[in-house]
């Protein structure tokens, strides 16, 4: 690890442009001393940093990798679970859809059966009402015909009565009484009558 840090420090030193070195050695040239001090300071700072924070940074990055791996695994597991759930819910949805279809068909069949029953019932009622109506009509007709017949007979009888009142005189009455007596004589004796 320390080698790695020294390697980085060397890279930093080497990355300084060559013209900067070229400027040193003259009054207005590159300030080598100042630059060297800065480099030393930087190296010291780097050393301090590596010394104190290195393990922690190292821990940080190594833990982070594991965490990321764990997170990735967790994500994978969650994803699988989610997919599983998704499949499960999809299956359930599919099943629900089938159930819905079955229920709808069942309701439809029941509705059709109920409709047929209601129609049959209505037809039956209509037939009964028609039969009742016909019966009532026939009864009313019979009653009306009977009433007319009775009126006609009443009229005929009242006319006959009028005729008889005029025509039954003493002679007619005598003939009727003679016939009546004859009928009485022809009757069998009824003891205790």
């Amino acid at each position: 690890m320390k080698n790695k840090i020294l390697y980085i420090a060397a890279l930093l030193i080497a990355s300084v442009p060559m013209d900067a070195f070229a400027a040193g050695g003259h009054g207005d040239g590159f300030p080598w001393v100042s630059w060297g001090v800065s480099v030393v300071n930087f190296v010291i700072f780097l050393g301090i940093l590596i010394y104190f924070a290195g393990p922690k940074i190292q821990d940080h990055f190594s833990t982070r990798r594991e965490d990321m791996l764990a997170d990735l695994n967790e994500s994978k597991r969650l994803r699988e679970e989610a997919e599983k759930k998704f499949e499960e819910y999809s299956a359930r949805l599919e099943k629900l859809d089938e159930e819905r279809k079955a229920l709808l068909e069942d309701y439809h069949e029941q509705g059709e059966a109920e409709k047929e029953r209601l129609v049959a019932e209505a037809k039956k009622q209509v037939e009964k009402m028609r039969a009742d109506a016909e019966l009532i009509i026939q009864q009313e007709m019979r009653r009306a015909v009977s009433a007319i017949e009775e009126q006609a007979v009443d009229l005929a009888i009242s006319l006959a009565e009028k005729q008889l009142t005029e025509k039954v005189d003493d002679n007619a009455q005598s003939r009727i009484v003679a016939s009546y007596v004859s009928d009485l004589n022809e009757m069998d004796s009824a003891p205790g009558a």
Partner: protein
Amino acid sequence: MRNPVSKRYARAFLELGVANGSYSTLQKQLREFADAFGESRDLQNVVLNPGVRVDERRNIVRAIGQKQGWDTMMLNLTLLLIDKDRIALVQDIADVFDAMVDEHDGNVRATVTSARSLNPTQVGEIKTAIAKMTGKNVLLETSVDEALLGGVVTRVGGKVFDGSVRTQLQTLKDSILQDV
């Protein structure tokens, strides 16, 4: 429908009258009193009134009997009816008694109703025919009802021999209505 009590009183009264040979007199007196009782509201008010003492009611009936010259048995019957509080049955008893006397004498009562008055010959013929039919002596009453139109209706006891034109017309009407 006759009251059974009336029948019992009438039967006993007839038996006593037959035994005494006075049932015809008793019949006449009982009929007169029953008719008077039915017609007179005053007489009913007195003999049926519970407010009048029994001995007073007996005195009133006894006074009527004496005035009418009732047989002792007739007087005793009416007093008994007062005592037993059965005097209200006197008309019914008289009717039953009449029927029992007729039965005893071999009589039968008949009423003849005709559209026109019957002459004596016709009445006699009808009477003879009923006598032949019943085998009894016929006590005949006649009446006229022009509504019969023609013919005769005779009632003997509970039987009716209907030979009226009115009934024949009704029969004709019924048969026509039955046929149509």
